[in-house]
């Protein structure tokens, strides 16, 4: 397993994808945090601390993390390297695990750093510097789970485009559409989506379920995506 992780780690840092993804993550986080902090000072949105603004800004920055995580898996299929990779590491479970460990490691560190960056920028605009560290850690945890979900889904669907579309639908597009009419049934459905559940965890909401409930729902989705990916890799020819 250590060898497989080492190999995936080397692969991650030897193409340009990682640098573009990290650059995009930090730029999106900084821009969103600045904008959201200005909205807060104008009274357009309700947030009380710099940490809250960082959490709000994850909605934008997460896209870079999701893209990176799903590319680690789907890139093997689009570049045609999956057969070579599986001939090095024939165990599908070991390969998928190694990829998830590598994605999780990078996402945790970069997610916490992005969270701190967003918090610090918000603090500069808001005259408030509370909750920055706590929010950054929560953002890191949220992004690790989302990254593992994207990696697993990539293994299940294989194509980068279809994987990204499904992820965007599930995280960015469908939940707000469900929430617009403000009907309790639809809101309830939206609350079961991974991104919304993750947001309840990040925001520390007590309604409709406690923050830990949001975290558990997200973990459930992640587990499901990883299992689906593992099953597909085991069953289908490479």
């Amino acid at each position, binding site marked *: 397993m250590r*060898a*497989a992780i*080492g*190999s*995936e780690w*080397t*692969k991650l840092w*030897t*193409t*340009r*994808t990682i640098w573009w993804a990290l650059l995009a993550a930090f730029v999106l986080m900084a821009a969103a945090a600045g904008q959201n902090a200005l909205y807060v000072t104008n009274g357009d949105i309700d947030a009380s601390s710099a940490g809250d603004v960082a959490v709000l800004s994850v909605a934008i920055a997460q896209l870079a993390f999701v893209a990176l995580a799903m590319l680690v898996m789907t*890139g093997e299929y689009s*570049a*045609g*390297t999956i*057969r*070579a990779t*599986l*001939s*090095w*590491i*024939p*165990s599908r479970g070991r390969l998928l695990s190694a990829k998830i460990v590598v994605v999780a490691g990078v996402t945790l560190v970069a997610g916490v750093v992005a969270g701190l960056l967003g918090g610090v920028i918000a603090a500069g605009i808001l005259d408030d510097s509370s909750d920055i560290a706590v929010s950054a850690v929560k953002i890191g945890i949220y992004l690790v789970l989302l990254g593992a979900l994207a990696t697993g889904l990539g293994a299940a669907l294989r194509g980068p485009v279809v994987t990204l579309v499904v992820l965007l639908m599930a995280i960015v597009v469908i939940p707000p559409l469900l929430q617009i009419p403000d009907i309790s049934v639809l809101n309830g459905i939206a609350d079961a989506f991974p991104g919304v559940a993750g947001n309840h965890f990040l925001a520390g909401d007590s309604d409709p379920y406690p923050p830990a409930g949001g975290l558990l729902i997200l973990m459930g989705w992640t587990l499901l995506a990883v299992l689906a990916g593992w099953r597909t890799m085991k*069953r289908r*020819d*490479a």
Partner: protein
Amino acid sequence: MAITLQELTKRYGRTRAVDGLDLEVRPGRVTGFLGPNGAGKSTTMRMVLGLDRPTSGRALVNGRPYAEYRWPLREVGAVLEAKAAHPGRTGRNHLLAMARSNAIPARRVDEVLETAGLGDAARKRFGTYSLGMGQRLGLAGALLGDPPVLILDEPVNGLDPDGVRWIRRLLRDLAAEGRTVFVSSHLLTEMQLTASHLVVIGKGRLLADAPMDELLDGHGSLEDAYYELTESAA
């Protein structure tokens, strides 16, 4: 024993790509693997490497399925397709990642780069490689784990005359060291120069498994022998 196929079969829907292949590919000689396009050569090789799942039957390498080896690159070196590296990664980094996956020391990477004659190209991105350079990188990868078994799918594709000569000598040397060398090709004259034993398949079935001399017996060339075999099967 080296490579053993037992009733190996692969069906896609109703077509049988590989149909009950029984075969022993032995060490110490270059075994050529011939057959028309779509005869099932690549599918067979992919099943040996655990990439495709047989519909029935088994493929074993030194008595065990490939996927059961902890460090498979030290058992089998394979070149399946020339475009097997990420276009954005340098050849050397590709081999470094490969070496790490099987706990092979990094200095071995420079040794095989030397053997494959990639030179300065090793530090260029794979996307800039010609087909021939891609083949050389693939061969470097196959040699990385110093494996007793080599499986090569069309390794001379895209190589220049120097490259063709280099690979011919390399394969014969590897076989002379007692390794199993199993190599597919469309180039019959090249095969006649490289292989000492031949396996011919058509429509997924075994047509011949015999020493080169025996196949050539009574024919002017390997080409004549090959056409007689494959046409009688069609």
